[in-house]
C-alpha cells in the first residue's frame, strides 16, 4: 500500500501531505526532513525510485513541486509513478493549467481530489471523468450551502 504522499516545493516547504499509515507528529517531522534531503536537488536523469528505510520512495518533479510517494517494497514502482502522473493530470484538469499557487490557495480542494482518488493507501478511482464529476457535484452543493448561509445572515 501507499504510506504517504508529500508535495514539496523547491525550497523545501511542504505544500500538501497525506499519510495513510499512522505516524506520530515527531515521526512525521523526521520523515519529512529526511525525504526533503533525499529528493530536492536530485538529478532528473537518475532513477525515480529511492530506497528509504523499509519503503521505496517514488519521487518526480513537476514544474516547481516534488511529488513524493512512499510505498511498500513489494508494490509495483512503475505503477506508483503513474499514480503521481494521474494525480497531476487531475489537478491540471480541475484547476485548468495548475501551478503551485493553485495548490497553496486551494489546498482543501487538492485534498478533496486526493481523497477521491486514494483512500487508505489504495487507488479507488481511475477515471478522471468520474472524479471530476464527483468533485463538481460536491462544489455545487457547497456553493449552495454557502449562498444559503449568506442570505440567512444578511
Amino acid at each position, binding site marked *: 500500500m501507499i504510506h504517504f504522499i508529500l508535495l514539496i516545493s523547491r525550497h523545501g516547504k*511542504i505544500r500538501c501531505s497525506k499519510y495513510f499509515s499512522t505516524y506520530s507528529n515527531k515521526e512525521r517531522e523526521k520523515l519529512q526532513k529526511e525525504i526533503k534531503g533525499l529528493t530536492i536537488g536530485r538529478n532528473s536523469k537518475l*532513477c525515480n525510485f529511492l530506497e528509504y528505510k523499509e519503503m521505496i520512495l517514488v519521487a518526480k518533479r513537476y514544474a516547481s513541486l516534488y511529488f513524493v510517494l512512499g510505498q511498500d517494497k513489494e508494490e509495483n514502482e512503475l*505503477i506508483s509513478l503513474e499514480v503521481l502522473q494521474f494525480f497531476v493530470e487531475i489537478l491540471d484538469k480541475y484547476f485548468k493549467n495548475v501551478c503551485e499557487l493553485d495548490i497553496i490557495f486551494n489546498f482543501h480542494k487538492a485534498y478533496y481530489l486526493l481523497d477521491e482518488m486514494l483512500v487508505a493507501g489504495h*487507488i479507488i478511482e*481511475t477515471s478522471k471523468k*468520474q472524479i471530476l464529476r464527483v468533485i463538481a*457535484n460536491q462544489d455545487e*452543493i457547497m456553493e449552495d*450551502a454557502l449562498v444559503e448561509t449568506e442570505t440567512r445572515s444578511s
Partner: protein
Amino acid sequence: MFGCDASFAYIHAINSINCGNVVCKGVGYLTCALCLPSESPLLILLVANLQKDLQSTNYLEVSSALTALSKLVNIGFLHAFSDQIIKLLSHGVEIIRKKAIIVLNRFMKLNPSLIQDFSNHFRRTLCDIYDTVMAVTLNSFAQILSDENQLPIYKDLISSFVVILKQIIDHRHHRHFDYHRMHRPWLQTKLLEILGILGENDKRASEQMYEILSEVMRRADDTGVNAGYAIVYQCLKTITKIYPNQTIIENAAHLVSRLLTAEKKNLKHTGITGLISIVKINPIYAIKHQLVVVDCLEDSDDTLKRKTLTLLYKMTNTTNVTVIIDKFTGIIKSASFDIHFKQEIDGKITELAEKFAPDSKWYIQTMNTMFEVASELIKPNIVNGLIKLIEEWREDDDIIEFTVTEYSKILQMNENIPDCPMQVAPWVIGEFSEYLQSESIGSIMDLLCKSLFKSFDDPTTKGWIFTALQKISKGVPSDQCRDLISRFSTSRNEDLQQRCYELAGTCTKLPIQLNFKRNFNIITNFKFLESYEQ
C-alpha cells in the same frame, strides 16, 4: 501544515463537524483526518458524529465521514462501526460502496480476525454492476490473500479473475478508463498481483493463467508508454512467482533483456529487478547480461547500484564468490552509502562467506578483513559462530596453525583493535598456544597485557583476554601476571575480578605447569543423583 503545531484548533475542527452545514462538516472531517494523532482521546468525541453522518441521506456527508473514518479508526472503536459499514455496502450511490469497501479493508488490517466475517461481502461486491466497485474489492482480496491460510478458499476465483482480465485487454470497459492508451492499467496490475499470489507453488492454478499472461504481456508491450511498462513489470513479477513454464519464462527473459538495454534509468532498474526474480528460477539468464550488469554497478545512480548489488548477492555460487565478496568489501570501504545499507551488505557477506567459502583459510582471511573494515557493523553472534567453526577444525593442524598465525599477526600489527577481533584473537591464541613459536609467546603476552589497559565498547572483551592469559601462562606465575592480579583484583567489573582471582588461584596454588587437555565426557546419565530425588 506549514510545520506549526495546531493542537489548539483540534477541538474547533471537531465542533465544526457537529454543525449542520455540509461545508463546515467537510472541512472539519478533512482537518481531523489530516491532523489528529491516532491515539488522541479527542477521537472518542467523533464516534457519535461519525455514526450519525454514516446514516445521513446526503451522500456527501456519508462520503466525507467514510474518508475520515478510514484514517482515524483505531482498534479501540472499530466494532462500533462494522455493522453500519456493512449496510453501506449496498448503498445506492457507488462512491459510498467503494469507500465502504476500503474502510472494511482498513478494519481488516487493524484486526485480522475480521477477515472471515467480511469475505462473503467481498465476494458479493466483486460481482457489482459498477465495475469500479469490483476494482476496489480486488484490493481487499489482495490483502486477504497475503495471509497464507486463506489461499485455498479463494482458488475458485482464479477463473473469474482471468475472465475480468480478458475483458480488460479487449477494451470492453468504458472508454473513460483509458489512461495514456492503456486500458485500466491499475486494474490490470492488481489482477496480475492477485493471480501471482494464487498461482504460487500450485501447478493446476498456474496452468489457468499462462495464456492470459502472455496475452497481457503482448498487448502491454506494444505501446511503449510507461503504464505499459508497469503492466509488463507486473507480469514479470507474476510469472516468476507462479509455477514455472518454459515458454512463458522464455518470454519473460526476453522482456528482461529489452528492459535492461533501454535508455531510461527507470526501465534499467526494472530490468535488474526482473533479472533478480528470474535468476532465482534459472541462473543461466544472468550470464547473458553480464556486461550490462557490470555497467549498472559502475553507474552514477545510487538506486541502480543497490539493486545490482542485490542481484550479485542472489547470483553468488562457489565459482564467483571471491569476486563478489571483494566487490562487497569495496562497497563497505567506500564512503558513498549510508549505514543501514552497509549493515545489510555486511550481513550478506557473512552469509555468503559461510555458504560458499571455497576453503577454510579463505574464510578466516575474509572474516578478518571484515573485522578490520566494518567493525562497528558486525553483529555480536558472529563471534560465537566463528569460534564454533574454528572449534570444528580442531583436528586439522594445518588450518589451526594458519589461524593462529593470522590472529597473532593481527595482534602484532594493529594498534587499535576493535571488540570482535579482540575477542576471537585471544581465544584462538589461548586455546592453541602450542602452535605458536616460543619466542613470540612472550611478545604476545605483552601485547595482551597492554590491551587490558585500553578501553573497549564491550565489557566482556577484557574477560576474554584474561582467560587467554590464564591459558597461555599455564599456571606458571610470571611478573606480568602478578602485576595484573594486583591491578585488577579491585576492578569494578565483577566478571573481571572473578577471572583475576582464578588467575591468582592457578598461578599460586599449583606447583607444576598445567597441561590443558580437552577431555569432555558429557554426562547424560544422572543416576548418581537419584538418591536425592523425591
